[in-house]
């Protein structure tokens, strides 16, 4: 009796699903932990406290004013990268662009093209056409 083989679409779909699942897990671990460690106020009473915000003159004339915020660790300057708060840039924006690049790679090199087959109605129509 010949050995029954698994459906090739099932094999490739399962492999691809595992890769995707790993990608999601890595993205979540990086984004959530980076943002939590670098962009969270630990004392909830400071969240809406305007007194903790200070805007200072820019270092260079005509520049953008500096934003200083006390979020529980003393007044610190808020850093920006490309206009994003730096923790958003490193924790969300950059990973987003990396995930986009990975998605393109995944589609191009990891996903395998397969024959999905025909549904019963289409198969019957095809058979009738042959007859």
């Amino acid at each position, binding site marked *: 009796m010949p050995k029954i083989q698994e459906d090739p679409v099932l094999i490739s779909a399962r492999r691809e699903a595992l890769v995707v699942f790993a990608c999601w897990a890595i993205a979540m671990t990086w984004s959530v932990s980076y943002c939590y460690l670098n962009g969270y106020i630990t004392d909830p009473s400071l969240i809406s406290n305007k007194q903790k915000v200070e805007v200072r003159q820019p270092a260079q004339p005509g520049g953008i004013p500096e934003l200083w915020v006390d979020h529980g660790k003393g007044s610190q300057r808020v850093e920006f990268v490309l206009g994003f708060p730096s923790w958003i840039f490193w924790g969300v924006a950059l990973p987003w662009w990396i995930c986009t690049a990975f998605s393109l790679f*995944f589609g191009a090199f990891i996903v395998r093209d*397969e024959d999905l087959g025909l549904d019963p109605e289409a198969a019957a129509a095809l058979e009738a056409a042959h007859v």
Partner: protein
Amino acid sequence: MSSLLFAAAAAGAVTSKPHGGIGTLVALAVFILASGWIGILANRAMSHGSFMKGFFLGNRGLGAWALALTATVQSGGTFMGFPSLVYTHGWIVALWIGSYMVVPITGFGILGKRLAQLSRRLGAITIPDFFRERFGSPALGLLASICILFYMSIMMVAQFKAGAIVMKLSWPGTESLAMSEEFSNFVLPGKQIERFRQKGFDPKTIDKLETLKDQKFQDVAEFETKLGEVLSIDELKAHKSEIVTAATPIDILYFVGLGIFTLTVVGYTMAGGFLAAVWTDLFQSIMMFFGVILLLVLALWRVGGLELASVTAVQQTGPGFIYGPGYDPSGVGRQFLPLSLAISFFVLWVYSGLSSPAGMVRIMACDSTQTIRRSIYLLSIYNCFIYIPLIVICVCGRTLFPNLGAHSDEIIPRMALVTTEGLPLSSFWAGLILAAPFGAIMATVSSYLVVISSGLVRDIYQRFLDPNASEARLKFLSHTGMIVVGLVAVAANIQPVKYLQALVVFSSTGTACTFLIPALMAAYWRRASVAGVLAAMFLGACTALTLYSIGIFNLADRLRLPEQLPIGQDTSLRPYYLFGYDPIIWGLSISLVAGVVVSLVTPPPDPKLISKLFDAQPAKV
């Protein structure tokens, strides 16, 4: 201090009321006509083959563009609810929505290929069809139908309000927004007080109400506050609801918008069914892309750059606008996105997109695996240009409209109207941008109309009531079903639904808890049994509904559960966050455990059926 002034001046907060011009309405009218025309084209295209497969599945002919830009993407929430959250809570919402970075590969890469293959082998046209045939169980198909009808109906009703608001805001003339705001003032007129007198209200209460006669209040909160100052607690308990209803304004433009929106979307979906929903969705997705990019450029130009916009927004609010867990406008220390919810939402958006019935049915309709692969490319790039730009636009919006308060879900339409001021053909450009949210909403509603209608006609009527129904009968019922669903949604929106984004989150959570684990079991696990999948579906749904019920009806104390933390969105339609986590975490966990355990303790499925679905099939000669 001078810097403060500099920042505020540079950002140029808008104090006047923005309004649409005739061009805005013309642009939307063109958009509506184009959608109708696409519906007619779809009607012609689906005419070959059987009505059911053509009307509800587009003859399995979806290409990459149609699949990518329609299966997992935007709804009214994207352009109304989500921007409102960014406006209200600040940059933390980028993390809240951050999981969309992997949605293109999770949406197509985890289930796509197997779902498309199995639905063909099983001849399934709808999601309940798929479960019923995969496990040979009508009960499973019926449970899936009921759950889909429930969640999709809630999600769809919420979208109608968003559509009506966009139409309302684009009305031409200087009175437009003035109408929407001033006509929506809360006023207690003398004739209503007289009515209360005739109904036998206490004369002392009447005297107190006379002090409020003909005064204008901006919103219900302001009116209720004043009412609380004037009336005693007992009087409030007895009459508050009736008095507030009497003072609630009739917003004529809202109803006009609701009518036009409903006629348009029900009309073109009836004409072309699934293909009309998909093609118009594609057209609208492309419009959204250009609308968002145009608005991004205009918004950044208007406020003088993103960093300056952030600085100004933080000045107006507080540290929470630029740091987690997010700004709390109420000032009571509510945490919008604590760590537990950040984890929850990274699960929620990914797995709710993956298991949405409207999305899954489109994957079933795709024509090949090449289409799935190309869809991943397209959607990855598309999402990159939608979500991060929307966050940027709304941060800019906070500086232009510092005090939207209860109207924060109008931020995108208002930005469209204000940022185009001064441009040549400004109102037309505003209309093109407004077409983006309008398109997103129409697209969502049309796809849900198809799913709900197919649930009623295919999964309930044809399966259980009249299996031999003629094609003409099914066609008539499908069209009638869409009209009835549209009318129900209009009726539900006569008193506009609140909490658009909260409803979107609720429906997304519910569908994920109900369908994700069963779909994974159906696709990848040979040993999955009917009882196991029924248990996974039923207990997943029950878990989500139970936690939402506990939250909505404040039952935590009575059930002696740990105290509810002040976290998440500030809305009364919110769940009980058990140990701080969203119901999706508990729903998926219970669904998984139930599915696996019950499958293992019940008899295995029919080996012949399993072999047909999991083993390589001999090639037909």
